[in-house]
């Protein structure tokens, strides 16, 4: 059985200037221990998708439609109380900027122990031991000492390790990682990816890795879903997406990633700017920036599925003309 | 949306007006303020008596309740004070004094503070740190204390109060102008203007000063309101204006002694006038801050 099954999820923000359809009909599934890379530009709705899963969308935003089945139970109808119990124990989340996610005026031990005690009645001493072991597991040297530190006394990479340790304290079934490496140096990025990956594998935790960087998820994810303007425009197995992208947007994204085996070639750019979420065109949101856009693209696009369960939402996908 | 903006080029003033109008409260406050100023200006023509012309004041009219009829035949809608002055007339004349003091002090503090701030920003070095030191010291003390200190030195009277108020307020302007001027003069267009061979004065007045205008206007309104409040406070304490220059604060102070005997109106109505004036200036200032602050632009 899948850990998570999202269908038709719509999260809208009711701002003064109009309704922003940040997430507008997103579907995906996730099995136990599976890693999903959720890729898209800033503003494509990938982070909001993550927050929707946790029930942490703040007003004026609201989940307006769709189902989020977590271990067979619909989270969109769950009570506040119930969501609070799930958060941090069965679904955990880590954030982009490790400078900002840890409370600057509380010590690490306070922040770790409270996360344990929020979900389990334990003696403080036991919780403290678990917190210490948690730090050791994410590769932090002399954890006892670190527990007494304040966040600003640790480096950025260390802080993100602490955040990961906190996320794993209660052995979650699902971890949502919202661009956790974006703010870090490249060498540290790799370490953090490795730590998260190892822990997920050991514990069978499903992972949603949200990023704008296809290169990061290429080596990490089992499957990739590409988001554009609130929708998943293409999804499939990682190899499939990287080697044979079909949506023009995915093609564009891949073209703009510098890579060693294309030295000397110009980096491709996607023309135009991210669309204004307040006034999206009818039909495909990418049509104005797309080299293949035409009249047809103004109509509603349905997803076309392939044999492996991947799909693309485009009238003129790459690879189809070659196959035809 | 972008097309509409392209066709219809708004002047900054038009946009400013449109944005200011977004807050109904601010517009109402501006209207009230205009009425208050008008009433104060027209006081000699719309009041039944000149409360400081002894020939027109009758002691027998003293301490009359609101709505009573004066000996001279007109109705004292707001009652009369201990000396028999019609309160309505006294308030309008008092408004004149209060507004004059507040505006004069506000304007002088603005000019002096701006000049000092610009000098600090442009001279740099020891002069700057000396000036800013003085500003810091001054700002760490509440305005009341500075004003009291000066009043203790200078004594009472309109001119002395204005000096005391300016002394208590110039530092706010100086600090803001210096900060803005430093930011502005670091920008490239000032450099460019200098390279064109423009004189210092021209750079300051044509380029730097206009950019300080927005924060100055905001501080100016708020500080004028607090100058009026401060003056009335000093006058109430008996160390501000004299009885011969009756501001609203003096009127309130006069009514204080009758308060215990239940003759509330002598202090109450001048207070209301003071309150409405100060609150409406502050409301206008609040909206100005929102409209003029580029950081809050949506």
């Amino acid at each position, binding site marked *: 059985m899948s850990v998570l099954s999202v269908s038709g999820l719509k999260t809208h923000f009711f701002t003064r200037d109009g309704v922003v359809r940040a997430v507008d009909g997103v579907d995906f599934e996730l099995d136990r221990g599976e890693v999903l890379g959720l890729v898209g530009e800033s503003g494509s709705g990938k982070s909001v998708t993550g*927050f929707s899963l*946790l029930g*942490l969308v703040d*007003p004026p935003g609201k989940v307006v439609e769709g189902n989020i089945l977590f271990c067979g139970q619909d989270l969109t109808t769950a009570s506040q109380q119930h969501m*609070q*119990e*799930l*958060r941090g124990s069965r679904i*955990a*989340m*880590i*954030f*982009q*900027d490790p400078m*900002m*996610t*840890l*409370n*600057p*005026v*509380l*010590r690490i031990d306070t922040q770790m122990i*409270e*996360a344990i005690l*929020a979900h389990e009645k334990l003696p403080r001493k036991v919780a403290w031991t678990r917190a210490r072991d948690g730090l050791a597991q994410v590769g932090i040297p002399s954890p006892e000492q670190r527990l007494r530190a*304040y966040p*600003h*006394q640790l480096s950025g990479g260390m802080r993100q390790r602490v*955040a990961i340790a*906190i996320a794993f304290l209660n052995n979650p079934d699902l971890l949502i990682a919202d661009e956790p490496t974006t703010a870090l140096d490249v060498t540290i990025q790799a370490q953090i990816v490795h730590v998260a990956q190892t822990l997920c594998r050991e514990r069978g935790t499903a992972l949603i890795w949200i990023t704008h960087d296809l290169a990061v998820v290429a080596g990490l994810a089992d499957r990739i879903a590409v988001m554009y303007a609130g929708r998943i425009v293409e999804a499939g197995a990682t190899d499939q997406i990287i080697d044979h992208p079909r949506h023009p947007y995915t093609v564009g994204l891949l073209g703009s990633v510098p890579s060693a085996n294309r030295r000397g070639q110009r980096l491709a750019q996607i023309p135009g700017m991210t669309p204004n979420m307040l006034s999206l065109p009818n039909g495909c949101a990418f049509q104005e920036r797309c080299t293949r856009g035409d009249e047809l693209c103004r109509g509603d696009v349905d997803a076309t599925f392939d044999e492996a369960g991947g799909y693309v939402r485009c009238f003129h996908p790459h690879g189809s003309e070659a196959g035809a | 949306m972008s097309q509409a903006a392209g066709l219809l080029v708004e002047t900054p003033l038009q946009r400013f007006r449109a944005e200011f109008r977004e807050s109904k409260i601010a517009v109402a406050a501006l209207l009230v303020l205009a009425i208050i100023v008008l009433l104060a200006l027209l006081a000699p023509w719309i009041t039944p008596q000149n409360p400081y012309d002894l020939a027109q004041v009758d002691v027998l009219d003293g301490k009359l309740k609101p709505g009573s009829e004066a000996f001279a035949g007109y109705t004292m809608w707001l009652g009369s004070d201990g000396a028999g002055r019609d309160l309505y007339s006294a308030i309008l004349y008092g408004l004149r004094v209060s507004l004059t003091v507040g505006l004069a002090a506000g304007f002088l503090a603005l000019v002096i503070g701006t000049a000092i701030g610009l000098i600090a920003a442009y001279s740099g070095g020891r002069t700057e740190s000396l000036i800013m030191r003085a500003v810091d010291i001054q700002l*760490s*003390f*509440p305005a*009341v*204390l500075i004003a*009291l*200190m*000066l009043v*203790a*030195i200078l*004594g009472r009277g309109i001119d002395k109060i204005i000096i005391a108020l300016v002394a208590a307020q110039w530092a706010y302007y100086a600090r803001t102008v210096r900060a803005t001027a430093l930011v502005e003069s670091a920008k490239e267009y000032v450099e460019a203007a200098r390279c064109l061979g423009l004189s210092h004065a021209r750079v300051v007045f044509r380029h730097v000063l206009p950019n300080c205008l927005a924060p100055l206007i905001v501080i100016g309104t708020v500080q004028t*309101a607090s100058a009026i409040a401060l003056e*009335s*406070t000093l006058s*109430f*304490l008996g*160390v501000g204006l004299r009885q011969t220059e009756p501001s609203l604060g003096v009127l*309130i102070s006069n009514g*204080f002694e009758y*308060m*215990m005997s*239940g003759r*509330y109106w002598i*202090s*109450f109505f001048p*207070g209301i006038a003071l*309150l409405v004036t*100060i*609150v409406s200036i*502050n409301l206008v200032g609040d909206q100005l801050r929102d409209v003029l602050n580029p950081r809050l632009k949506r």
Partner: protein
Amino acid sequence: MSLIVFFGVNVIGDPVDMLINPEADQAEIERTIRALGLDKPIHEQYLYFLKGIGSGDFGKSFIFGEPALKLILHHMPATIELALVSLIMAIILGIPLGLYAGLFPERRSSRLIMAGSILGFSLPTFWVGLMMIMLFAVHLGWLPSTGRGDTAVFLGIESSLWTRDGLSHLFMPALNLALTNISLVIRLTRAGVREAMHQDYIKFARAKGLHPRRVIGVHLMKNILIPIITVLGLEFGSLMAFSVVTESIFAWPGMGKLLIDSLLQLDRPVVVAYLMIIVLFFVVINLVVDILYSVLDPRVRLKDQGS
């Protein structure tokens, strides 16, 4: 500073005119002048005064004939009591209201609170004081209008906090003095809450599944309290200074009322001594707040250790 204050105050007016019986003869006037030290040239008076400051002597009050410093110290406890109580009032009333307005900014009640805080800033304190007397003392007769009530000694501190009568006398002036600070605390708290609620550490705390009470009570409050406490510490000095107004209205026998009385009676040693003492107060308060801040904020603490 001392120079400005001393010479400045000396220019106010001639205290001899005020103090001496108009019908007194020339000999009597001269005797008084000599007794007060007013016959010496002004620079000599200043030297005298400087020497005095060194040994804590500001000269004798013309009116009371007592040392000015002693007079002020005698009035100081009442003022400190008033300022402290209103500081506490500002915290007790301001923080919950600001918290509410910050957490639910769209609610009508929040807007009401914010409108009220603008009023609190705009209203002239002295007039509100008068209106309070009118309403609570004259009209309703609930509270005594003026003066300080009975005091009692408890834990070695003489204060009106320990008696019913003292409390009833204290309530109105303290609230009056607190008014501006309540508004200030409301605004600071609200702004802090609004800013902190969008911070990732709050979202992360919620994502950990903490109870909202803990998120707000610990994660949020601990962050916003640091600036609030700092500002309030600095405001304590302002409260002492502002008590000049409140004490005059409510006839509270503190050093503020003493200052105004002395100003009106041209009792310049007392005025000078008051100004000197209050300046000293400000310097001390700034110092204490600096220390307090570094104790409260772990980020500052570390920097100090590192250097």
